[in-house]
Every structure is written in structure tokens, then in C-alpha cells.
């Protein structure tokens, strides 16, 4: 066997959403090895998912040829076709759907973390076509946080972990092999004396090392934050000068906070009042403190209030846009953001008004984006700021209801790109019905998934080692990271930019998609910096423009008042409570005595992926329900027993892991489980056996009011012993 000389390049890993820059070695035209970064500060930013990339990218089951369905939907019978034939037929069938039902009959679900190099082409195509119905998992993960943060101060800040003195982790648990760079920054901060406060129903890895651990009841984060504000205001620990000059709504907020005395907050959260007060003081008196983004507050019935409380804490304690606090970075002036490429201005107001879910739950939809357009332009120079992809979305539950029922109008074409939609949203049975009711389903994936099994066409996607890119964290930070193509993709595979470009050229939008390649798009995006992609790649691996702090002193904040809105004028104008509040989630009962929290990620996997990668699956072969010994014992359950978790909505089967670290009365459920090995024997590869998405309701009663985000953190359930599912061991 001949071996070509090693070819070492820098890549941005897209196996999870954190985007570590790593080094990749190719041999004989294939990805051979992933190595840590050569830069000493970034050398630890690597995990075992990243180093499995050669086995993922060269996996024998990887999709390499476009597939066209020839059996019944979901039957898994396919004909191999060319990319050109697939795109011709998709364009023709989409045209028929649009002609029959209007452009809003197209819905697209995607995960930018997975597809990475779309460059806003999906929204660009949809806006030109006339559809506002774009959805994504970021509706429950960071994107919605970005949208809610904009209500308070007009941007989504990033924590300055490199200089902070105090880190507050609301349920977030960065680990050595999960959110690795954030884990490493926290460790560095600890090393120089920063304190860490963890709020988590479980004694997580971060909680074990924390200065304070508040083992709160799941889903009570908003109440906890209101309790912190009570302590801070009562003890005068807030930054009165900043509040006086830069905030509006303080008196109203103060009155609301007074409704949450510590004994009430202690009763709601299950945490001792004195411990709550200690944590509040520790946060408020630190010389620079941060509350990094957390998925936990993205996924609960009080989500908007919980995220708003975090925003308010940052502001009133003087930690907003300062060194060691949380920084409003704005757009990178040298790199056109996706917001520019998406062409939101061409979608007519009448079509924007049709965005599904915007009537009931408007916060991350066009309705609020339009309300913030003027202040956003005044402060940040653009009317549309699509931060972390999450500021112009339709509501996923509303989209799936429309797909399944035709109410309020038919949605008959559904495209899923890098997104296993069936297992990624609440009420999996509704999503299933929605997919079955479609005239056209297109999946663009690297591997066959349960969602792709329901498609009419499955197109093979590329992976990060097969494309050039500059990762920009979707405007969350201003950092630009180079990712170099290491090997060629399979001949019939396409990137997502290529998919949308090819479709646009077939549907009359060729003029608006003038860039033939991703490199030409990158040249266009870099134009403000005066460089081409080749020049950027030849000069640097990563760069950030000089950081700006306290720039609001020149521009004000990108809110209607130009101030930090402690009472949100946007929420008030929409008819919602302008102040944060605690809302209780669904209660336990004698029939369902346990409190369930779902959506938990495991180290070897990202979202619903990688269960087919042996070196990763061996680290976590089966899904595990975490139970406290006091709960497992009376049920006769021990480690490794199989059990069924039942909720009023659905049931999953998993193995038991008895964990003294759990808060008694709580059950922790991992996210996104299915069984690729059952594809030949079980419908949809076991998508309904262990997927937490069957447990969660999309019922309006169980959605956050302002965003419509589902409640994953604290709903009733029960656990009963059962045998292992057939074919799983």
C-alpha cells in the first residue's frame, strides 16, 4: 500500500456546535487523523468526538449517492439517482406545491451546527420564494436566548471568561468532552481564583467542583433569579449609577421582585434561603461576573422570564459590556454576516405576517424582528440581526401542526438539512403525522436518519474535512476561524450552499445566487476587509477585531427606548407581561409522582447523531435514566435494569443508572436516542423506542407564553420495570 505524504491542515470541527479549530491529516485522499491545535492556548480544545472524525467521515454507511423513494413513505426502498436528476425533480415538485398552496407551503428545518456552510442561502432562497416558515433546533437552544436577550439590551452578549471573577452555571455543565473550550476556560478561570456557582438538580461534574451548588427543583430558574434580584436590591448590591443612567423600568421591576421574598423563592426552588442569598451576594459583588448561555433556561415553561432575569442580572450588577462581564460585540466589520446574505428585506410584509406561530408566540419571529429593526439599524448598522440563527424563526410546533392538519393553512413541502427533525422537537408523534402528510419531503444528510427515512429524496451532504469555510459563530462573537478543505467530498455529495444554489438556479433565482462556489461566497463575505478567502487563509488561522466595551455610551442600546429595558416595551406592546415572573410547570400527581427533565446531551454524541459510530457508541451503548437511590429502591430497580419512563404524553425505554447525585424525586432523560442498527428490522430504526421527544408535549399549556418554547425541565412521569426492547442489549 502506498502512502502519500502527510497533508496537515486546520479545520473547524462541526461534529458538535462548539466549533473547535483542530488540525487534520489526510493520507491517500482520505482523512487519516485529527490532531489538537498547535497553538498552546487551544491545544486542549479537542474531544473524543472530534478525534473520531476519520471514522465518521469514512463510515461505510455514509450517504454517497442521492436517493429517490420508490416504496411507501418510510418503507426504506430507494433508487439511486444523480444529483442533477434529484435537483430537477425537487424543483419541479416544489414548484407544484407553491402553485397549489402558495410559497408559505414550504417549511425548512435545519441545524446550522451540522451543515455549517449554508451562508444564509436557505433563508435567501425562502425569502425570494416567499416563505417565512424556517425552523431550527436553535428555537430551543441558544437561538431563542439570543432573541430574548435582544428584548432587554438589543444584542446577545458573550461572556468574557478570560477575565471574569465569577461564573454562574444555570444547569449548564461543560465537560472535558462536551463544550470543551468553555470547560477549559472555566478551568483556567478557577486556576486564577474565579468562583463558580452551579444551579442544577443534579450534582453535575461542574457542581462537584463549584464554590456553591444550589440543587434547585427543575424548571424553577426564573424564580431563583428573581430571588437573587431581591437580595441584590434589598442589600443595595446593584450598580445604581448604571441603573439611573442606562436602564428604564427599575421601579416596576423592583415592585415585581418584592413579590418574591426569599422564603417564597426557597419554597418554589427547594433551595435554602440563606444559600440563595449567599449565591446572589457572591455574583453581585464579584469584580466581573458572567452567566454564560445555558440550554436549561431555553427549554422550560418560564423560558422567556428566566432568560430575561439573566439579562437583568447582568445589567443591574454592572456586568454588561465590561471586561470580565458579558460583551456586546456587534457584527465583525470585516465579514458580511449571514443577516446580510439572507435578504430578509425582500420578503413582503404580507408573507412575514404568515409566519406560523407568530400570532401566539412572537418573540423569535419576524414580528419582534420588525419591532427591533429601527433600533438595530441605529446601533448595529443593519435592520436584521440574525444572532445564532435565532431571530426570525417560525414556531416549530405551529409549523408541524400546520403540516399535519392544514391549520391555519397547508404546509405541503418540508426540507430537513442536517436536521433529524422527527427526534428533535417536542411531540414526536405530531411531527411524524406532519411528515406523513407532506407532498414533498427532502432530506440532506451525511447518514440515513429516521427523518430521512420518511423523505422522498435524500441527498448526501459533505463534512467539515471536505470544504473550505470561515466560521463566524453566527454573529455571537466577532471571531473568525479558518477551516480548510482536507479531502474531496464524494462526487455526488453537496454542501448545503450548493444545494440551495442549485435549487435557486432551477427556480428562477439564478441572478440572486451569482456565487458558483463556497470560496466565491467567502470572497464576497470578506470583501469589507479587502481580502479574498485565499488571502485570509494564507495569512491567519483565526482572528478577532479589537474588542469594544461600553460602546452603548456612544450609541445607546438597540431597544426602542435606547436603554436597557428592565420592563420590556416590546413585550408590553405585544400584550405580554413586560416583567419576568415564575410560572409553575405541570405538577406531579399520585399517578405520575416523579419530576422528569429531558434534553440532556451525553459526551459521545451530539444531538441525535453518532449512535452508528462504534468507537463512540461503545462509550454509551444504551440510553440511561438517572434515578436517585431513594426513588430506584422502592421500584425494585438497580443499575442496568431496563425500565419504561411514562408521562401523560408518551413513554421511552432505557436502562437505569442509580445516581446518588440526583435530586430525589427527579428523573434525567438523555436526548435523541434511536438505533441505527435496527434499521433493517424495526420501523424508522427504532425512532419511537427511547427518544425523549415522545415525552414532551407541544400543547399550548406546556409552552412558554412569549416564545412558545416547550417545557423539557420538570414535568410529571413515572418509572416502571420492563424487559429490554427487542434487538437492543
Amino acid at each position, binding site marked *: 500500500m502506498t502512502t502519500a505524504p502527510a497533508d496537515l491542515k486546520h479545520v473547524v470541527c462541526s461534529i458538535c456546535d462548539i466549533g473547535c479549530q483542530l488540525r487534520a491529516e489526510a493520507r491517500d485522499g482520505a482523512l487519516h487523523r485529527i490532531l489538537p491545535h498547535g497553538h*498552546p492556548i487551544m491545544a486542549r480544545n479537542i474531544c473524543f468526538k472530534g478525534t473520531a472524525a476519520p471514522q465518521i467521515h469514512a463510515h461505510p454507511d455514509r450517504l454517497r449517492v442521492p436517493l429517490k423513494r420508490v416504496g411507501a413513505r418510510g418503507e426504506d426502498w430507494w433508487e439511486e439517482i444523480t444529483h442533477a436528476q434529484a435537483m430537477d425533480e425537487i424543483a419541479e415538485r416544489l414548484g407544484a406545491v407553491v402553485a397549489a398552496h402558495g410559497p408559505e407551503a414550504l417549511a425548512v428545518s435545519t441545524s446550522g451546527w451540522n451543515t455549517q456552510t449554508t451562508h444564509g442561502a436557505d433563508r435567501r432562497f425562502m425569502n425570494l420564494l416567499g416563505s417565512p416558515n424556517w425552523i431550527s433546533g436553535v428555537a430551543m437552544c441558544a437561538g431563542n436566548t439570543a432573541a430574548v436577550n435582544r428584548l432587554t439590551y438589543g444584542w446577545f452578549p458573550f461572556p468574557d471568561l478570560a477575565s471574569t471573577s465569577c461564573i454562574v452555571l444555570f444547569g449548564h455543565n461543560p465537560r*472535558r468532552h462536551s463544550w470543551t473550550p468553555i470547560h477549559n476556560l472555566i478551568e483556567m478561570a478557577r486556576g486564577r481564583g474565579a468562583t463558580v456557582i452551579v444551579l442544577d438538580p443534579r450534582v453535575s461534574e461542574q457542581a462537584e467542583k463549584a464554590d456553591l451548588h444550589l440543587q434547585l427543583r427543575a424548571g424553577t430558574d426564573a424564580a431563583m433569579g428573581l430571588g437573587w434580584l431581591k437580595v441584590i436590591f434589598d442589600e443595595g448590591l446593584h450598580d445604581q449609577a448604571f441603573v439611573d443612567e442606562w436602564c428604564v423600568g427599575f421601579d416596576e421591576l423592583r415592585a415585581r421582585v418584592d413579590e418574591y421574598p426569599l422564603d417564597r423563592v426557597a419554597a418554589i426552588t427547594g433551595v435554602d434561603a440563606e444559600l440563595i442569598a449567599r449565591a446572589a451576594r457572591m455574583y453581585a459583588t464579584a469584580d466581573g461576573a458572567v452567566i454564560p448561555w445555558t440550554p436549561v433556561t431555553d427549554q422550560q415553561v418560564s423560558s422567556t422570564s428566566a432568560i430575561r432575569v439573566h439579562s437583568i442580572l447582568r445589567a443591574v450588577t454592572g456586568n454588561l459590556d465590561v471586561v470580565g462581564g458579558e460583551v456586546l460585540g456587534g457584527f465583525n466589520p470585516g465579514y458580511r454576516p449571514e443577516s446580510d446574505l439572507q435578504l430578509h428585506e425582500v420578503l413582503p410584509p404580507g408573507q412575514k405576517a404568515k409566519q406560523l406561530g407568530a400570532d401566539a408566540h412572537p418573540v423569535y419571529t419576524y414580528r419582534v424582528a420588525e419591532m427591533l429593526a429601527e433600533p438595530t439599524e441605529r446601533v448595529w448598522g443593519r435592520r436584521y440581526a440574525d444572532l445564532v440563527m435565532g431571530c426570525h424563526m417560525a414556531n416549530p410546533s405551529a409549523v408541524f401542526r400546520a403540516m399535519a392538519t392544514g391549520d391555519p393553512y397547508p404546509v405541503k413541502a418540508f426540507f430537513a438539512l442536517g436536521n433529524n427533525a422527527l427526534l428533535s422537537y417536542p411531540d414526536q408523534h405530531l411531527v411524524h403525522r406532519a411528515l406523513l402528510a407532506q407532498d414533498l419531503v427532502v432530506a440532506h444528510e451525511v447518514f440515513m436518519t429516521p427523518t430521512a427515512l420518511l423523505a422522498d429524496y435524500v441527498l448526501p451532504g459533505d463534512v467539515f474535512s471536505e470544504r473550505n469555510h470561515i466560521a463566524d459563530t453566527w454573529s455571537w462573537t466577532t471571531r473568525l476561524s479558518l477551516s480548510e478543505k482536507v479531502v474531496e467530498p464524494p462526487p455526488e455529495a453537496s454542501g448545503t450552499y450548493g444545494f440551495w444554489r442549485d435549487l435557486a438556479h432551477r427556480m428562477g433565482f439564478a441572478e440572486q445566487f451569482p456565487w458558483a462556489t463556497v470560496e466565491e461566497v467567502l470572497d464576497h463575505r470578506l470583501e469589507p476587509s479587502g481580502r479574498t478567502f485565499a488571502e485570509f487563509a494564507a495569512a491567519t488561522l483565526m482572528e478577532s477585531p479589537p474588542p469594544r466595551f461600553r460602546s452603548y455610551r456612544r450609541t445607546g442600546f438597540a431597544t426602542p427606548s435606547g436603554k436597557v429595558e428592565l420592563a420590556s416595551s416590546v413585550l408590553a406592546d405585544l400584550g405580554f407581561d413586560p416583567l419576568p415572573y415564575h410560572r409553575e410547570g405541570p405538577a406531579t400527581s399520585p399517578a405520575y409522582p416523579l419530576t422528569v427533565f429531558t434534553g440532556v446531551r451525553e459526551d459521545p454524541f451530539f444531538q441525535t447523531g453518532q449512535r452508528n459510530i462504534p468507537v463512540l457508541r461503545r462509550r454509551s451503548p444504551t440510553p440511561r435514566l438517572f434515578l436517585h437511590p431513594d426513588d430506584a429502591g422502592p421500584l425494585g430497580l438497580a443499575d442496568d435494569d431496563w425500565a419504561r419512563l411514562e408521562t401523560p404524553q408518551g413513554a421511552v425505554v432505557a436502562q437505569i443508572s442509580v445516581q446518588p447525585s440526583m435530586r430525589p424525586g427527579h428523573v434525567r432523560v438523555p436526548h435523541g436516542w434511536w438505533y441505527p442498527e435496527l434499521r433493517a428490522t424495526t420501523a424508522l430504526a427504532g425512532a419511537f423506542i427511547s427518544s425523549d421527544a415522545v415525552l414532551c408535549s407541544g400543547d399550548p399549556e406546556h409552552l412558554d407564553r412569549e416564545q412558545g418554547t416547550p417545557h423539557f425541565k420538570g414535568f410529571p412521569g413515572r418509572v416502571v420495570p420492563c424487559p429490554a426492547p427487542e434487538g437492543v442489549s
Partner: protein
Amino acid sequence: MTQRSEAAHRRAERKARLMNGVLNRSLTRREAGLDKVAKTVVARLAPPEPPDPELHHPDRVDGPS
């Protein structure tokens, strides 16, 4: 936060901008001049990492479990 004076804010901001500049230069492909100095400075700040056996996967495995 503990009230930070205007002077303290400015000192912290200057330092942050300086460190950002050093970090940028340490990440260029240029190995001379100030970029070389930046690379040397950063290398002194962070000691080399010991190898992590968890990062190594076997070349061949039989299956998921």
C-alpha cells in the same frame, strides 16, 4: 459588581485590547517580527499539554457494544 472606577475600566479595556492583539498575532502564519514575539509570549503563558489517551480511538472495532 464591586464598583469599578473609570480608570480601572480603562486599564482593563486597554489590557484586553492588547491581549487580543497578541492573540491575533500568535495565530498568523507569519513566523517573523512581532508575530514571532507574540507566539513566544503565548507559548510561555500555556504549558504543553500531556497526551490524553481518551482521544485515541482504535483503528478497528467490531460494533457498538
